[in-house]
């Protein structure tokens, strides 16, 4: 299905020149003025360069090391906003780094990278204390979206009972969703979808992130089923309003954004 033209942003421009449009500000610069520092532990030079470039283009500061021992040392010494750690590393396994970090009570969010074809131990990875898991090869937009979510998670600590994006409001206790006074009747899944989008307002969320977090399944849909759910949700919360809140980021996913 084709999203309406007005809600389509170009992912590349959006991420490279985040402040040009004034409408949508994403990625690193939006949360606070301090640039975010990311530790990357990856032995494959090409992959590392690709990730470094992607992160730096989006305003992150990247500290890159090439083996497990060094990675663990650097992770223990430095202050990082998030860490990206490869599963298979020379000298020390990625999972073992995370275990050591969690044992030393370092709670920095960690994203594990694993090559397709390796033993699929998503569950094992999450069990030892990783926060997210991404299988190579991936699109850089997918990695950026996940890193952004991880960094924000580190910042938002207190439990909220009310989410607000522009004039859209969600009461987490009564499950009441309103926009400018109008009450929406949402299906349970639509509610969870909107809740996830509102919790990550201003951040780009990918289709796989939605499948993993809203539907709680990790699989590859043959068709973009998620698009249909989003357009249904859009029908409810955006139809009849001047400002569109739910936008499609072409080639990446979606973003729920308050108008300026």
């Amino acid at each position, binding site marked *: 299905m084709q999203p309406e033209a007005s809600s389509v942003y*170009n992912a*590349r*421009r959006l991420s490279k020149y985040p402040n040009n449009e004034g409408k949508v500000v994403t990625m690193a610069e939006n949360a606070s003025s301090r640039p975010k520092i990311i530790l990357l532990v990856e032995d494959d030079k090409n992959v590392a360069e690709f990730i470094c470039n992607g992160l730096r283009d989006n305003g992150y500061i990247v500290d890159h090391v090439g083996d497990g021992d060094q990675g663990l040392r650097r992770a223990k010494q430095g202050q990082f906003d998030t860490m990206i750690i490869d599963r298979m590393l020379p000298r020390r396994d990625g999972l073992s780094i995370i275990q050591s970090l969690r044992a030393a009570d370092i709670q920095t969010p960690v994203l594990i990278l694993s090559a*397709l*074809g390796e*033993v*699929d*131990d998503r*569950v094992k990875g999450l069990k030892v204390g990783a926060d997210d898991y991404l299988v190579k*090869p991936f*699109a850089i937009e997918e990695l950026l979206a996940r890193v952004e979510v991880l960094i924000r998670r580190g910042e938002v600590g207190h439990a909220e009972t009310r989410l607000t994006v522009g004039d859209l409001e969600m009461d987490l206790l009564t499950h009441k969703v309103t926009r400018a006074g109008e009450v929406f009747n949402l299906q349970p*899944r639509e509610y969870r979808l909107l809740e996830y989008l509102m919790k990550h307002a201003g951040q780009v969320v990918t289709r796989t992130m939605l499948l993993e977090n809203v*539907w709680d*399944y*990790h*699989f*590859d*849909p*043959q*068709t973009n*089923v998620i698009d*249909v*759910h989003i357009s*249904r949700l859009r029908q409810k919360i955006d139809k009849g309003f001047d400002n569109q809140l739910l936008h499609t980021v*072409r*080639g990446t996913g979606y973003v729920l954004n308050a108008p300026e």
Partner: protein
Amino acid sequence: MLPNKLVDTYRGVFGSYVFRFISGYAFWLSISVFLLLGIIYSLYARDIYRDIEQQLDYELGQIHDHYVEGGVLRARQYVQTHGAEITAPKLLYSLLASDGELHGNVGPPPVLEDFEFAWAGLNFQTFNYQEHGQDLRFAAVTRGYDDGSELLVGLSLIPAEDKIQLMFDLLLRGTVVTILLGVIGGAVISSKLLRQVEAFNTIIRKILAGDLSKRLPINRYSGDFREMEININKMLDRLQELMAGVRRVSDNIAHDLRTPLTRLRNHVAQLELSGGGHKEEIIASLSTEADELLATFNAALKIAQIETGNRQSEFNRHDFTTTILDVIELYEPVAAEKRIRISDNLPREASIEGDRDLLFQVVANLLDNAIKYTGEGGLIEIILQQDADRLKLQFRDNGIGIPLADRHRVFERFFRVEASRSEYPGNGLGLSLVAAVVDYHQGKIDLYDNNPGLCVSVDLPRST
């Protein structure tokens, strides 16, 4: 110096397996024939000598009896009357009386020698006796008496030794003939076997050179060779089948990836030409196309990974009904767009031990397919039945179905029903992935006609 070719032939003959086989065979054959005939010979000879020994004992006893009864006179009388009957072997005796007088037909007392085969348990000695100028060998036993007299009885050994010699000659000739025949027979049989092996090698060399259609000729006679030939041919059939499969898959990959790659390439070319107005649109569609290609590769890799079974994903017990309901819920809006009704008939709970994500993928792919190939306003039925150890999942739709001829091929990677290639999007991997996951869970998948439409039946064990 010999010409090279001759040297080669020489090496070929004497270095060959056949030559070594036949020489070894001849060696062992000779040894066993020698041993066998040697044993026969010794047993025969021993029996002959044993006869002599018995006869000697008998004669000694007779003469002794006569001597004791009537003295030298009776003894001589016995020998004269009885000894004349014994011509072969000739009977001789001598009696050396106590007074030193010598009686008998031997002449002076012979010099006794030990018999060379005494070790075989033969209790007699031998001496040489001159008759008509001929040296004749005699076997002899003696007996001494208290009064100092001594009795000797001798029997000619000549007839016995002639018999034994004859036997020896016979056996020697027999040995030579047996070994000769054995070696010839062995050579004929082994060269026949070798020709067969050589024939195999010739054909196998041809197969190695690339002609996979060659097969071994099947032996007319049943036996190990025939069985081996049948098995080798079966192996070759399987190999050819696999090769054809690999070839088909790579052909399909080439075919299916060429189209999007060409489109991608054309868009890049367009990007160069366009002044800038459509640039963003083109770039966006470029990345969509690249994403589709990547998704195809990832799906192919995932299938390979599941098929080789090195996923080691965690199997755990969960409720399959919930999984199906989640899939239905996920796809319901897609179905609603085509006004397709999804009806389900599921047990309240159906626990299964398996990979939850992969099983979700199976149900999702099946429902995705059903929606894709069912027309506007169609109906999809999802039925789950369970018994003690199996779950049976059925998807029935009233869509376009799959032609009978293609039904067994839709599980092949990249295979797409010809008619649907252009009309419906897809990469031809959905059902391959389903089949791989079902197989991974040791289940079974079948396709039936739903008249009209398709019925997919998946049979899964509840625990593996």
